[in-house]
Structure formats: structure tokens, C-alpha cells
């Protein structure tokens, strides 16, 4: 059983997963950059959530639940509603489909993103692997 998504416990579980998954370590070995995931209220989520992940060379150095961005400038900011991100986490919505149909907004270096699509997709696989129950 995995902690409910979204929750600080779930985020910590993802942190542990990213640091123990050999496939992710291999695919993301050249990734250098942190990321913020903003989950906008919808459905069962009443308040915005902000998750911070520091990803480096196939490992996750840090995760944190933030109250606000407060000047933080991560490499990428991903924004989606709770309903859409839940569908991604549960496998009902492909992450590329979400990005290409306006359901998941990406802000950051598009050059870096396009060069590292395999890493992004494997990151989502790890998220899905630790997602069971949702709100």
C-alpha cells in the first residue's frame, strides 16, 4: 500500500522510489535540475498544492511541500488541475497527451525538455508506480 496521493507521505515515497529505481537512474543520469509541480484545486482538492523536487543525475536529492514559490526559480514548473494530474498518476491520461492538449502546462527550458523526453516519461512511470489511492 502506498500513501494517498497527494500527500507529504506520497511525496516522500516518490523520493525513495526515484533513489532506488535502477531504470530511472540510468535514463535520468544526465538530468540536472529541480522541478516544481503545482496542483490546482479541482474535484476533491480544495487548495493549491506545491511540490518541490530536486532531481540530479538520476537521483532525487530533496523533496518538499511548499506553501508558495516565493522567488524560487526551478528549471521547470509543471501545472495541472488535481483532476488531470490524478488521471496522469493513475495511468488514465498519457503525460504527452496532457502536455499537448492543454491539460498540463510546462514552463521552463523547452530545449532541455525536448532533449530529455525519455527522462520525463520515466519520471512519470515512477510517480505511477507509487500511486495507489487518491483523494
Amino acid at each position: 500500500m502506498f500513501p494517498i496521493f497527494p500527500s507529504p507521505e506520497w511525496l516522500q515515497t516518490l523520493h525513495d522510489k526515484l533513489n532506488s529505481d535502477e531504470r530511472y537512474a540510468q535514463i535520468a543520469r544526465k538530468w540536472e535540475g529541480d522541478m516544481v509541480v503545482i496542483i490546482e484545486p479541482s474535484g476533491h482538492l480544495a487548495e493549491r498544492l506545491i511540490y518541490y523536487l530536486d532531481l540530479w543525475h538520476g537521483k532525487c536529492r530533496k523533496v518538499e511541500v511548499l506553501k508558495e514559490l516565493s522567488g524560487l526559480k526551478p528549471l521547470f514548473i509543471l501545472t495541472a488541475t488535481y483532476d488531470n494530474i490524478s488521471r496522469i498518476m493513475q495511468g488514465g491520461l498519457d503525460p504527452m497527451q496532457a502536455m499537448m492538449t492543454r491539460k498540463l502546462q510546462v514552463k521552463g527550458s523547452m530545449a532541455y525538455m525536448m532533449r530529455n523526453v525519455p527522462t520525463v516519461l520515466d519520471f512519470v512511470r515512477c510517480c505511477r508506480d507509487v500511486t495507489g489511492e487518491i483523494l
Partner: protein
Amino acid sequence: MQPILKINLTTGETSEYVVPPEWERDYLGGASLAARLLYPALTRDLDPVSPDAPLLFLTGPLTGTAGPAVGRFVVCGKSPATGLWAESNCGGFWGPELRFCGYDGLWITGKAEEPVYLWLNGGRLEVRDAASVWGEDTYESQSIIKTEIGVPNAHVLTIGPAGENGVLFAGLFCDHGRTAGRTGLGAVAGSKNLKAIAVKGTKKPPLARPEAYMPLRGEANRALKADNIAQVTHDLGTAGVADYADYLGSMPKKYYHQATMENVDRVSGATMAETILKGVSACHACVIACGRVVDLGDGVRRKGPEYETVVGFGPNLLNDDLPAIVRLGEVCDRYGMDIISASNIVGLAFHLYEKGIVTDKDTGFPLRWGDVTGAEKLLHLMARREGIGNFMAGGARRFAARFGAEDEAVQVNGLEAAYHDPRGVSGMALVYATSPRGACHNKSDYFFVDWGQADASLGLQFYEKQAGAEKAANVARHQDWRTACDALVMCLFANISPEMTVGLVNAACGLDWAVDDMLRSGERAWNLKRAINNRMGLTRANDKLPKAFLEPYADGPVAGYVPPLEEMLAAYYSARGWDPVTGRPTREKLRALGLSDAASDIWS
């Protein structure tokens, strides 16, 4: 809508044509309306480079309104390359400027005695001697004509030497390097001794409900600016998708015969952005600005390559030299040749040379993969129709047939394939096989759907990239939507919601449509174009793929896969309501779409 200006180049006569209101409603504009208007003229016996052949330039109901990526026009007729329906749309500023003149289109027939260009200054048309620009390249022609007419901010659409020489993949160019490239309509213009059309106007395009249109326009442009695809194309150009296409195995290499290439990332949009990019360029009022401005170190600002150019002169030739790709693209632009076709034919020449079918005796010089010098020599020869270039100027099908190797040409019905491999994105198998203009990637850019742009509000599902017949109905639906977009004439990168697009159409045209009505309009025009092609000789046997796409790659991300074309086609005909034996739209389907005349013609 505004009238269409008809011009007979033989007699010099002009007249204004007013589109019947029911056609304006059912077809909206652009390529759809062009198909309706040209239907009687496009017969099997029509020689596409004869004076009788029409050349119709049309805008759409949103052109020039500063809506989301809608500053476009389309040119239509009969293709000299395929003998079938021809359409090719183009960005820049020329289309909006035509509408500012008070016309929604120019309908040209006849042939001038000597080379001419047209100068449409507001509502006043002049037919001018083109002796000063005949033979000049497209960039120079635009510059010279602007100087001659004395209006520097006029916009000039021109052909280059390739169009003058009847190269069957010659295009029309405006605003430096914006191109209506496909299907050879530059050769049709050349056959009419029509070098160029300059336009300058001051009128505002008509809007049925401006008070509704304006706020929606702002909302749509803001949404587009924030869109991920728009961000990628703004930051990296259309070549920004090169890395992803390579990862998926949908970017062909070595003339569609190799799945992987060392250092392929050296020619991506990301690499361009990090090395030679100096700026961006945009079409009229476009918030994306996908155009690239690059500097190769000589201080000259040049047009940077988009995806098709990058792949066509890059991995297609096993070339990883990005500046060389820029230069080869510029050679094509200046001559006025479609880059997809030209690079495909160069790749074919390399391929045939490797197989020993084409030899030094034919070329006069060796052709080695990755040799950009040889590639450039071939471009000069084909544009000038010299030596082996004379055969290449007829397109890949004719060129390969000349050497007894027609099967080696990667084309469908005479149009060279674009650089989206159906072994990596299987929906493109149906797109290439059934597009009204041959192996075209724009009459449905289904590779985007296979990558993820499966919009639920269009009724699209997201299938596996190598799914088969189950995606046939999806492909048909996406073709209908893109046909409707081509009626507008809207850029394929305008990734706003379909509901927002329909809202803009309703406000501009005074309609009260839903998304399904737009799809129906697209379906009507798709079937009409099919009927036009049936009437010009297209049969079920034309719905095919070249041999290369039906041979699996030995390695790489899609090793061992070929699309199950026959199963896909059977499902496609069923989804379309087409006769599975003849491949024609059934009488019932045509009548249900309001195309009784076409039903009578193709089933008589």
C-alpha cells in the same frame, strides 16, 4: 465575405465574383471553398500548365483579423506533379494584405503573352511587365518589385527560376521565405507567365460580430501564447520536435532506409537555439513566431530551417552539419522549390547511386551520403533542368521511373513524402495513402495525434503509436478537423481548444455552430476533394504506400514494424462511408453532405 477578383491573363479582363451565401456557409473559405469553386474546372483532360488551368488564391474568414495564427492564405488548382487536386497554404503577411485590398481571393486563368506581375494597390489592379525580374530568385524578386512599385511595405508573392522552368515542385514565396511549397503550383504560375503578385491594402476585413470577436480573439491569443506546443515552436522552431521524433522512430534517415544516426542531435531545434539562432520571425499577428533567424558566422541574417528542412537535408542525407542545412534550404528558397520534395529527390538520387542504378555517367560527379556539396550541385541542376536535373525536376516518381526504379521513390501519387515515418507513427500510413494531394503530412498532421495531441473535444482517442485499423476512424475525424482548419486558413500550430476555434468562426461569420458542425464542414470538403480526384482518375489503387514504408527497420526504436495498410484502409473506408471496392465516396454519403452533383458525376 468579400468578392473574389477574377483575372484572365490572356485577355486582361477582370471581374468580381461574389460567392453564393450557401457556399460561404458550407465551406467557410480557404481550400474548402476553393474545391467547391474549382470543381467544374478540374477535369481529367485539363492540362495543369495550360492557359485554361485555374490558379485560385483564397483567404479564410479569419485571415487578417489578428486571431490566433490565422494570417494565412491558400493557393489551389490542379497539380502538374500529381495530376490531382492541388492546394498549398502559406503564412507571412500576403494573405492578410490581400484581404485589406477588399478581396478574399484572386482567381487567375489564361496566360500572359510575356512575363508579367500583378500589382493590386487597394482595389486597383495593374498588370506590369516582369522583364526586370524574370530569371531572378525569389528573394531578389520581392526586393526588386517593391522598389519598382515604390511601396516598401507592400507584400510580394513570387515564383523563382524553378517555377519559370516548369519544375514540378516549384512553389510560391512571400515575405522572404514563407512558402506555398507543395504540389507544384509555382510551375502553374510560371506556365501563365505570371512571375509575382504584389498587394497593398487598407481595408479592415469584415467581421459579422466584431463585439464578440474581439474579446475572444484576445483570449485565444493568450491561450495560444501559454500553450506548450507554442512554447516549443517559439523557443526552438518547428524543428524543436526533432529530438522527440527521433526518440520515437518517426524521423526517417538515409532516405527512409535507416532508423538511427549518430550525432542526430546536432541538427535539432534545440541545437539551433543554442548555436546559430539570432532571432525569430512571425507571420501576421502571430504570437508563436516559429520562424528562425540564424547567423552562420558571416554576419548575414538568414532564414533558419524548420523541421522538414532539418530532416530533409540532415538525417535524410546522413548529414549532421546544421549550417549546411541552412545553406541548402536557402538554395531551394531562392530557386523557388519546395524543400520537402527537393530534399526527397536528392535523397532518392543518393539512394539510387548507392544501389548502382544512377552512376557517375549520369551525374558527372559522385554522390556519397553526407556529402552536402553533391546535394547542392543536384539542386542547381534540377532548378535549371540541366543534365540529370532535368529528370529530377519532374519529381521523384518520374525520376525513379526514368531509371526503371519507380518503386524506390518514396512518394504517393507523385507527391514526395514528408519526414514523418509511418513505421514510427502508424496513423501517417493512412494520412499519406489517402491525402487528396499525395504523401502530404498536413491534410492531417496525425503524427501530432500519435504523439499525444488527441483532443477529446474532437472525439479523438489516444491510441498506441503503432496501433493499426482501430485508429482508422480517428484518422478520418482528424482529417475532417484539419480540413476545416484549412478552410479558415489556420496554422496547424494554433493549438487552442476546438471550442475556442469554433467560437471565433461563429463571431467572424455570424454562425451558431458547435464543434460537430465544423467537423461536418470539414468532412464535406474532404469528400468533395476526393470526388474531384476520382473524377480526375484517382482509384482505389492509388491509396497506397511506397515500398520503403512497408519494409521494417532492422534496428532502432521501431525495429520490425510495418503498418498494416490494407487492414487500416478497409477500416478507413468503412468509417468514411466509402465504397471499399472503388474507394469512392458512396452516392449516399455524397448526397448526405450536400454533394449531389459530385455523386452524379463520379457514379454516372
